[in-house]
């Protein structure tokens, strides 16, 4: 039917039709609100890009957070609750997203801000970290801090490896369990080998090798270990968890961080020290953060 016909939609749109009026009214009221929220969101992102700090107790997570916030480290003790702080990249570092902006541009300043989220590392308090991992809104990356001196001995290495294994497994599960075909947004992991100022500390490449080796062991014994009681007692997720989770590639080969790339997680190891030596040296960590901001 042609547009000038009395029944055509165009005619109806200009006629004093109740539906038309209702629609117009709705539009008039809703548009400013939508526009406002849109622009408002755009201008001040309600949530900054976040980086979550994980790692065993005493690794130096809180120390790093305080260093990031002020330019010197505060004294710290074992944390019992999480902490989130606004941090700004140091002046010497330009985030990849702001390469073409000039300093002074407000957008440039904004692109340098981030939220650092510290979590307690004590074995009994990892549920805070687990909650972050289960629902990583706005999380751009995970910084897993390890004490490079503590991983030099067996016990410290195992603790770090077990924790890291669980973290990587959670990320893998999130990736493989995603409903969309595209897969969820990639979450990279930085393994920050801290306390390199101590002479007992392992250099970063050895930290990497030891962790890979220890995770291979953890993975093996986890696979052989007992099933946990969830299924037998809860009854709620019967049959679901029967399949064992296996971190990284199948097969009996050793675990390597490289294998995590397949599930959308690149793992990088970088060394630094928050305290000590001549001064703190966390430049390489900042570079990594800037890269993923």
């Amino acid at each position, binding site marked *: 039917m042609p547009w000038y016909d009395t029944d055509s939609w165009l005619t109806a749109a200009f006629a004093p039709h109740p539906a038309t009026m209702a629609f117009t009214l709705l539009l008039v009221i809703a548009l400013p609100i939508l526009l406002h929220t849109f622009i408002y969101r755009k201008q001040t992102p309600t949530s900054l890009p976040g980086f979550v700090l994980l790692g065993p107790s*005493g690794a130096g997570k*809180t120390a790093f*957070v*305080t260093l990031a*916030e*002020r*330019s*010197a*480290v*505060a*004294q*710290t*003790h*074992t*944390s*019992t*609750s*999480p*902490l*989130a*702080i*606004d941090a700004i990249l140091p002046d010497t570092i330009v985030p990849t997203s702001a390469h073409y902006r000039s300093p002074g541009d407000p957008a440039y300043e904004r692109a340098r801000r981030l*939220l650092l989220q*510290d979590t*307690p590392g*004590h*074995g*009994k*308090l*990892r*549920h805070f970290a687990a909650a972050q991992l289960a629902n990583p809104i706005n999380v751009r990356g995970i910084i897993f801090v390890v004490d490079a001196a503590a991983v030099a001995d*067996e016990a410290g290495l*195992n*603790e770090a490896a*077990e924790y890291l294994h669980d973290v990587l497994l959670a990320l893998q599960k999130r990736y493989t369990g995603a409903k969309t075909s595209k897969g969820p947004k990639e979450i990279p992991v930085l393994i920050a080998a801290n306390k390199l100022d101590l002479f007992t500390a392992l250099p970063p490449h050895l930290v990497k090798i030891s962790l890979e080796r220890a995770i291979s*062991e*953890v993975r093996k*014994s*986890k696979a*052989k*270990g*007992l*099933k*946990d*009681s*969830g299924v*037998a*007692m*809860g009854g*709620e997720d019967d049959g679901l968890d029967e399949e064992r989770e296996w971190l990284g590639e199948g097969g009996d080969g050793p675990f390597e961080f490289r294998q995590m790339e397949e599930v959308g997680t690149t793992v990088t190891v970088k060394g630094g020290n928050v*305290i000590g030596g001549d*001064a703190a040296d966390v430049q390489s960590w900042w570079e990594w953060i800037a890269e993923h901001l």
Partner: protein
Amino acid sequence: MLDTFEILTTSGVVLWSRTYVPVGANIINSLIRDVFIEERIIPHSEEAGAKPTYRKEAYTLKWTAAKDLGLIFVAVYQSLVHLTWIDKLLDNVRALFTGLYGEQLKKEHTSVVDCSKFTPYFERQIQELEGTSDSAPSVKLTPPSSSNGESAEESAPALPALQKAQRPLYDTSADSTPVPTPDTSRPNTPGQGQGPTHLLTGKSRPGGGKLSRRDRKKASAVTSAPASSGDEASVKRKAKGSAKKNRIWGEYGAEEEDSSTILDYSQTDIQDGTSQPEALEEIKQETWGRKTGKGQFVLKDLDEEMDQIIAAENAKKESATASGGIVGSSLGALGGLFRNVVGGKTLTKEDLVKPLKGMEEHLLKKNVAQEAVVRLCESVERDLIGLKTGNFTTIESTLRTSMEKALTKILTPTSSLDLLREIQTVNASGRPYVLSIVGVNGVGKSTNLSKIAFFLLQNHHRVLIAAADTFRSGAVEQLGVHVRNLKELSKREGGEVDLFQKGYGKDAANIAQDAVVYASKNDFNVVLIDTAGRRHNDARLMSSLEKFGKLANPDKILMVGEALVGSDSVAQARNFNNSFGPGRGLDGFVISKCDTVGDMVGTLVSMVHATGIPVVFLGVGQHYADLRGLNVGSVCRLLMS
């Protein structure tokens, strides 16, 4: 004398600290770990109404918290010293600090609180409290490591005049020659003294503040004198210096700021400042400088202000409790009701009584022992009082989440047990891994031992089962049946299993020892030792466990407990844990028959509560394969359902 006072957040950042004698960070860390996180040590207070204490190495720690702001105030002092005023100090400092910085502390996404001006307040508190208490004699008990403060303290009341007369000497010559005055001739430099020094003198004269400033200066002058007495002294001095400056930022940064700030000083201050600018920087700039500039003196103002803040904070607290108590005003009640629904209500003890009662009954129904319930509820209550409920959350749901957290915390082991890896590590050192099982009669020790054996066989270990139950007739045969079955199964699964037995009547400890020797000779890599069941209140049988532990020296001792057992579980766990003599305890629990109790899995909580030892295995059925690790999340869900 006080060694250190720290104000830190629950997230682990030290906001403010005052160090008289440096104390290792591990001391406060272990307070946090043992008392706050693992709750292994239930703090007790020495006198009724006093604050609880915690001892670590040679130190005693007392603390208080401001829950809503997430602050912990900790005082550390030598256990040898008896300080009566610490409780009061903690309370006052808390009131002051929350009063002064409460607003700053509520800011989100930051850990910075600018509390550099807090030092004078703190100093005044110490002076006042020390002045009112008669703790002077006890001071002599302090070992030399902390005696800096005391030496000055002793001299101060005794020789005010002398001190006054000689003050000019300090001003000019403190850097170079120690003058043989009572103060400086002491073995330890008086560098530390400022807190205690003006303690008695400060009040008696109007210009007391000047003295204290001078003392400060004097102290810091000594502090920065060239090192002459070796390493230890220089370390000490460094620590003292940093304490003086009240820097919580560590060692960086502050050194550069001083030269610019001296200028705005009145005459006396310049004098002070030039001789020791660095140490004065904070004080002069912020509070002291400003007030002296106006030509009036400081301490009076400070005192008044301080009293006001403390009074205001106390009044706040009082009004909170009062309004909670008198629900007579209908408007208040209505408002409370409304806020209970909408959220944003500050919880008081009264608010929590009823919901806690409900929670208590709920947990008791889940078969959690009374004692554990009380402790859980108390810890949750401690957690919640003074807290504001979130938006649109009721007290009940706040309580629920808090209880869930408490349960998760109590059940989650500090480090997880990975049996297979431990076996590997121990075998690598060339000896068999020894695991033994204890428990009361009839809880399923042999059955669970067999289940563990089956699990190990599946992983191709060579397992020797030792029958150390030489007491109950039929026990050895029963184990023999299990071993036969396991042998049958292991044909399919791989691995190898055998029984080690010496019949009845022999001493269990010796059998166990022999079994370990036999195992290493015959290339078994795991030894599982079954022991006789015994009532946990049977002193004779329990005492033989100590010898058993010594001779067999197991890598792990697990106790089997029944999920069905009720309130007895606490005593069972405790007695068994204590029966191996000092330095040795249980390493974990196996909870059997979990399949028979449905959601009433409270026994787990009771046993962990009693000992702080984790549950490592759960028996969930009649088959060899029915052994599980603990899933904390699902157990918590069951308990809260």
